[in-house]
Each structure stands twice: as C-alpha cells, then as structure tokens.
C-alpha cells in the first residue's frame, strides 16, 4: 500500500482492515523511535515509548477524527509519552550506565580519533540528558526533526517566542557543558 495517504489508511483501519494499521506503523516507526530516543536518551526506553505509542494509536485510531493530521497527532502522542517516561524515571537525574559509562570502560581498542569521537558523543549525550525536559524536547524537535517553531509551539502549547528562547537556551547549555567538561 505504498501510495495510500494516511487518511485513506486510517479509514481502512476504522473499517476493520488491520493491514492498514501495519502500514501506518511501518511508515512511522522510525520517526517515532528517533523522537523518543532523542528525548529519553537510551535505546531500551525509546523502544518502550515507541511500542506504547503505537498501542495507544491502535486503541484510539477508531475514534480519530481528522481535526489534526495524523502526523501531528503521532508527534504529540510520542512527545507526551517520552516526557511521561522521563518524569517517571527521572532520567535526567542519573546517567545511563550502558550508553555513557560502559563505552568509557570498554576494553575495545581503537584509533585515538575513534576514542575522541566516542568521548565527545558521551559528553553530548550527558549534556542533552541534563537539559530540562521542555528545552530538551524543543531541542530535539528543532535540531533533529527540523520542525518549524509554529508546529513546535502548537505541539507543546506554548508561544513561538518561547520556543525560540528555549532552543537557544538548550544549545547554550550544551555548549557550556562541553566547554566545562573539556
């Protein structure tokens, strides 16, 4: 079903065709995963969020009305699910062993540049993990997803000006963290 629009697939699912839901999952699974991954930080949590998002979509899609686009809706559900997981786990208050500490302790030998790059990535992960959740979300949606501020503001129910300020503050904090850590 490569050419069908989201609206057509939703209608088919609402009429009982589960294959249409499968197509929607395949279409959006990577996007949902990466939004979650960049907000929550680790693969396992991002996987949990992504699965939860599609379960919620499955349960709610029957009643979905096209007041907003499916794409906007799925963004909103993913961001909310990621933020809820952050709140539950208080991820920003601790460092992931598997993704941050473990690479530093790894015996795996490699060229200096590789090590440097790995350390740099670790620092960036730490810097992003320390951002307040709103700034982190705005950073992910703007930097990684390249969403216009108007859409981010709509998703997070905030002003466009506030989103620009949040994005600047996020980048500034990452910058300062990198500087202080080097």
């Amino acid at each position, binding site marked *: 079903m490569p050419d069908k629009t989201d609206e057509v697939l939703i209608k088919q699912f609402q009429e009982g065709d589960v294959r249409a839901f*499968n197509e929607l*999952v*395949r279409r959006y*699974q*990577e996007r949902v*995963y990466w939004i979650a*991954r*960049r907000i929550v930080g680790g*693969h396992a949590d991002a*996987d949990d969020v*992504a*699965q939860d998002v*599609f*379960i919620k979509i*499955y*349960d709610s899609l029957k009643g979905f009305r096209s007041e907003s686009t499916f794409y906007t809706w799925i963004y909103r559900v993913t961001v*909310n699910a990621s933020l*809820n997981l952050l*709140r539950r786990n208080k991820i920003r208050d601790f460092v992931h062993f598997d993704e941050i500490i473990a690479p530093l302790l790894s015996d795996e030998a490699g060229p200096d540049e590789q090590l440097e*790059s790995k350390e*740099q*990535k670790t620092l*960036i*992960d730490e810097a992003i993990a320390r951002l307040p959740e709103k700034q982190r979300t705005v950073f992910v949606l*703007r*930097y990684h997803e*390249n969403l216009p501020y108007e859409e981010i503001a709509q998703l997070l*129910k905030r002003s466009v*000006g506030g989103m*620009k*300020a949040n*994005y*600047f503050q996020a*980048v*500034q904090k*990452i*910058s300062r963290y*990198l*500087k202080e850590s080097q």
Partner: protein
Amino acid sequence: MTEDCREIRNLLPDFLSHRTSGEEQRAVQDHLERCVSCSEEALALKETFLALEGAKPSIPSETYWTNFLPRLHNRLSEERRTGRELAPWVHKFLVPSAALIVTILLVSRIGIIPESKDSFSEVRQVVEQMSASEFHRLAETSSDLLVPESSSRLEAMLPHDEDTRRAINSLIAASSDEFIQLREVNLHGLVDSGLEDLTDEEMETVIERLGGNGTL
C-alpha cells in the same frame, strides 16, 4: 545585555545552522558586527553545532525494525488476552472524572482556595456534561489512572470521600483568577494532571463549564 541582544541570541542557533530567513540573517549579521559579546556567544555555539554534527548515535539493527511490528502485535494480543484494556465506559467517564478529581485534590493541597458550601453533586453533574475532548485532555496525561486498581479506588472515592468532597467545594468557591494563578505554580502534580498543558482558551472553557457564570 540589551533587548536587541536577547532577540538576536534566540536566532543564533538557526543562524548557525542556516535556517534563518534572509531578513533574519541580515539582522543577525549586522548585530554580530557591532556586538562583541554576541559574537563570542555565536562562536561558542558554532563549535557546539560542529560537535553535534560529529556525534552520531548508535543505530538499531535492521532486525530491530523488522521485528518491531510482530513485537507490537504480540503486545496487543497479550494485552487483550490479559484483559488489561479498560471497558469503554471507563475511558468515557471514569478516567477523565478521576483525572479531574485528582487535579482538584492537588489544587486543594496548595491551600490557596477557600472552602465553601457543599456542591458536590452540582460539580459531578457538570463533570458528566463536559465534552469528550475536555475529558480527554484532562485524562490524557494521567496515565497512571489507567491502572484498573487506581480507577476502582477512585470510583469508590467519588461519592464517599470527605476530602474529595471538600476539595471540590473549595474549587467551586475559588475565583477564575485564583484558578488561573494555580496554573503558574510549577508543581509536578499539576504538570502531571494535564492542566499545565491546556491553553488559556481551553482553560477558560473548563472554568466556564465548571462555573457556568465565569466563577468557580
């Protein structure tokens, strides 16, 4: 730092990643030519963007994506099998009502709202009359309430619990301004309750629906 500097700094990340409009780009360039402090900030941020571009996250394997859908269907089947899905009436009434009650309890804990006459049944009636979307918004972020045990507890709490009754009465007695002020209080409970996510317009609608005449 001037107001001009603040505005320009908010544009810096987009300027450095070539996402500003022509007009914004000229404004930033003009400003950076005459402001040392903002130029230094821009330089620091530029290095950060270079570092960000160089740091690629580990990518899940192809198998992960292939298995994603089968795992999802396994979970859906498992949830259906274990009966974790809630009955439709729970989604339609109990969960949103529970979210509202919890919100009220959290609000009353802050102690800003005065107490007043008993109007529990009146509020309950209004709650029942709220639109599905209003319910949905209140319930959306209260995912913990979707746990059946919590819902049962809250169901039992609705008609009997004195604290709930008192909290609802307090809410009725509060003015719109007081209620709006509560939104500014950055408590995790309020954030989790979903109130924080409502726009001013949505909030006014809720207040209006609760009070009928603009007051709670």
